[in-house]
């Protein structure tokens, strides 16, 4: 069993987000830390599920250590993606974090009902956004012990 994120082994993070501006902002903050991170991006729910079920072209897509999921997505929305991830025995152990502009009570409640690991509302100010992404990645990629990368099937 490899120790995640230690000794220069890069962490695999899947960002499911359709706004390229948000993708870039997240990448800027996430990848500016000391930790080596491979950021994969899926721009809608269908693409995300294909990546997670390792159907991405001919290359075997790596299993992410962490998933950042937007709610408002084309084709398949974030809640549906969440339901599929948490309904799949081989995927449900991957910590999945909602990262969205919505602060609607209904969205928050539904996300947790679908077993989101946490719910984050994107702050309006850049500084606050950077702070949020940084503290989230610090916590989920350094503080916590993540599940082993290869699950016994």
């Amino acid at each position: 069993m490899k120790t995640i994120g230690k000794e220069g082994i890069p962490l695999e993070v899947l960002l499911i987000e359709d706004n390229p501006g948000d993708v870039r902002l997240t990448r800027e903050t996430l990848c500016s830390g000391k930790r080596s991170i491979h950021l994969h991006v899926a721009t809608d729910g269908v693409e995300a599920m294909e990546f997670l079920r390792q159907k991405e072209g001919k290359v075997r897509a790596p299993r992410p250590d962490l998933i950042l999921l937007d709610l408002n997505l084309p084709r398949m929305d974030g809640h549906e993606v969440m339901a599929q991830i948490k309904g799949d025995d081989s995927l449900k152990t991957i910590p999945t974090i909602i990262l969205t502009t919505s602060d609607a009570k209904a969205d928050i409640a539904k996300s947790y009902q679908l077993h989101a690991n946490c719910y984050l509302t994107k702050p309006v100010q850049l500084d606050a956004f950077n702070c949020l992404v940084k503290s989230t990645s610090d916590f989920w990629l350094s503080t916590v012990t993540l599940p082993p990368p290869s699950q016994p099937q």
Partner: protein
Amino acid sequence: MLSPLESPEGVLVTAAVRDISARKKAELLLLRTMAELNRSNEELAQFAYVASHDLQEPLRMVASYTQLLSDRYKGKLDSAADEFISFAVDGANRMQRSIQDLLAYSRVGTGEKNVGDISSEEAFEQAIANLRGAIEESGALLTHDPLPAVLADEGQLVQLFQNLVGNAIKYRNPGVPQIHVSSAKDGGKNDEARWIFSVRDNGLGIESKYFKKIFGMFQRLHKREEYSGTGIGLAICKKIVERHGGSISVESQLGQGSTFRFALAASKGKS
């Protein structure tokens, strides 16, 4: 309409024919106008909410990227570029505040109305707790009379007190800001009894020609460099009070402090 009328000449009958079609027409018109007004009010509230909500997303991009441009490239281009970027950042930030304030204003109208018998004193205490930072920083002295039970939405009453007391601290004279909140009963009949609340300060005061203007949306009496804010606070106060069926007014003299008064229905319970 026929009415018998007895007279020495025998029974006479007077006939009165009143054409009420005009009245019926007017009633119908009134009903239609009211329905139309309601619909357009709801539409307007919905519009403000949707506009402010949907504008946030693209604006977040403009604000974030101009800020990123400023963080990364300040001093690396030329002085004109620095100036342009700083205007863009400032504009985006101000627009963000305006939109957030517009959203807050429209929420007063679209949220559920949660009116019940509540203690205005507790609402006031909550407002004070929310303003703790500003109160400590300014050294403001806050006093109040015992405050009554009223028929109101608690969250909105907290916001009302918070905006008024917050303003009293913000627009203060040099020295210690003193703010006093009191209430007086108005109207004898029990089911129409109201409480008139007064929030009195010893702050900058306001010229009488601005008494009406200050309750308008995005109205400000000071330059941006002097006092921050978009000018929504009192507009929200007015909307809250009017939603409760009351009215709000100010009495003030420049340099002599201000007193804001508003009326709320008394609690229906024993008082």
